[in-house]
């Protein structure tokens, strides 16, 4: 089967800094994969390129056969890509339920006329979206929290709301940006379970950016490693664990081994 996401030779520079350089990644449909790399490796930039916040300088992003380069974030979302954020970005003054309902925005096809004048059909759709949002809250384990203001929830729960909100757009691919950052071991364990259920019960392809190696090695089927904006390795967790380039990127390289065109110093 064709991969759901194919990134080909993607590059992005900010001034003189090449944040993402010539990265090619392929994500299998229905898989659970991770993108790892030391701080500043360009992982979040890659997500921002995928979701349309930044426009790639060169390269292609093929999602389900369609090129996403140059698409606005809302168009990318409508195509079926959803994401969460490294630092939680909920709508803090909205209730939890409303946050999730915002996520379903692109799935509500209502004309302006209907929205403004409330003619037929519209309210049924609102009710349906509300129902869907409640179900998603139940799915992520926040049943009964819908009426709380999102900023009043504890940190771990806010992460869950973000996941529910991302799922509300019925994505085919979901990008989690460091979803377990700041969680305690118990919360992390719950989160791993949730990621698995997202894939298994909802059939959504999952891609994680993650720093916690226990999480990465535990759940990923496939790992891509970035360093200084370039991809330096890919493979199964076991292959990655044994890959000397990866170890070098994380632990530093010995002074004797200064070569490599793929891993030069950043100017």
């Amino acid at each position: 089967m064709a991969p759901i996401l194919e990134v080909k030779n993607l590059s992005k520079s900010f001034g003189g800094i090449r944040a993402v350089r010539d990265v090619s990644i392929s994500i299998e449909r229905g898989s659970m994969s991770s993108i790892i790399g030391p701080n500043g490796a360009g992982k979040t930039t890659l997500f921002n390129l995928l979701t349309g916040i930044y426009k790639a300088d060169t390269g292609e992003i093929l999602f389900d056969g369609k090129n996403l380069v140059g698409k606005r974030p809302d168009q990318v979302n409508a195509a079926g890509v959803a994401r969460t954020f490294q630092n939680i970005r909920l709508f803090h003054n909205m209730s939890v339920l409303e946050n999730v309902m915002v996520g379903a925005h692109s799935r509500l096809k209502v004309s302006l006329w209907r929205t403004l004048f409330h003619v037929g059909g519209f309210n049924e759709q609102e009710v349906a979206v509300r129902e869907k949002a409640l179900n998603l809250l139940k799915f992520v384990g926040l049943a009964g929290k819908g009426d709380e203001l999102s900023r009043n929830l504890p940190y771990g729960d806010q992460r869950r709301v973000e996941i529910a909100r991302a799922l509300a757009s019925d994505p085919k691919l979901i990008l989690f940006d460091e979803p377990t950052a700041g969680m305690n071991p118990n919360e992390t364990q719950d989160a791993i379970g949730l990621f698995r259920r997202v894939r298994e019960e909802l059939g959504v392809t999952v891609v994680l950016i993650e720093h916690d190696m226990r999480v990465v090695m535990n759940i990923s089927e496939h790992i891509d490693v970035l360093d200084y904006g370039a991809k330096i390795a890919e493979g199964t967790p076991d292959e990655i664990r044994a890959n000397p380039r990866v170890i070098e990127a994380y632990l530093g390289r010995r002074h004797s081994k200064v070569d490599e065109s793929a891993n030069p110093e950043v100017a």
Partner: protein
Amino acid sequence: MTAETLDSRRRGIFESFLDSKFYRRLSRNFIYRYVIYPVGQMLLFVALAAAVLTLVAYGIAILFPEPRPNIVLADQISKQLPGMIISGVSIGFVYAMIALGYTLVYGVLKFINFAHSELFMLGAVASFFFLSVLNTAGLLTDVHPVLLIIVMVLLSGAFTGLIGVLVERIAYKPLRGAPRLVPLITAIGVSFVLIDLTRIFAAVTINDFNLTLPTREIPALAAPVPFQFGSTTVNVRVSSIIIVVAAVIMLLFLNYFVNGTRSGRAIRAISQDATTAGLMGINVNLMISLTFLIGGAFGGFAGSLYSLNVGTINPYIGFFPGLKAFTAAVLGGIGNVTGALLGGLFIGMTESFLNGTLVYFPALGQRYTDVFTFGVLIAVLIFRPQGLLGERVDEKV
């Protein structure tokens, strides 16, 4: 004006009631959320402003019992109280409707659209042209006055809404990424452009830019309606009643739009975090246009209703109401829809009370009304810089 906002933030002594099953079910009810609750809120604000200002007025009457010989201030206040409240409510709703335009646009773009006062003016001018065309065609008295006013207000609002969208597309959108002062200055420029274009248009078409609405031709608007308050009779102008009724209906509609629809939810999401809203599938540019449409339309509604009340208008009338409405929006907490309503009513009522009482002070007189009105603003902002209902802004990364 959302039920949710108040539920979750200002709980206090009502906590047990707000948590009860009864209230939870009630707060989901459509009629409660979009009719009873906002109407109650408006009544509360009116009552609150009236009570505070009445107390202050009598307080002044105690300090200065006889500002002029043989005039007992307290007696005068008692005599004028109903009239002051009614005219205060009526002008207050006009300010509130204009203030909503400022606050909505500020919510999504974080800048003050100073050209908004000109949309108010354009609403008034559009109403003038609408009525004059009907008048010259001799149709003015044939149409039912209620229908006439509804059509006039809606057409004026539709016109200014479209102008608002146009202005945003031409003047503000190219400056989306610019420093915040740039669109602000542009807005002031747009304001002058709109004033002068209107003046040119009026000069070319009717050779005069002082426009007198043919309201005298409408008999239904001419005779005031007497209201009996105890021993005093207050004659209320029909146009004041129209303003209040129309404003309440439109504010209910706006409340429903902002809090009960998908687009309103999208606009609120953008006002909190535009980037994330885009990533959640919201077409940010479209929603910004929609915000300008709604905000501009409300400016136009207000201008149209205001023109009925004052009778004669010109291209420069936007400035003071615009400034006061901006004050109202800041007073209520800029970016906060409920705050705009409260601020508008409060400024309108303050102005009306000052107009009613300052005449008795020989050294001051009514022309000092604005000094005191803006003095109130300064005083409030010293103690609550975020506005009455605004939130403290914590900048987060």
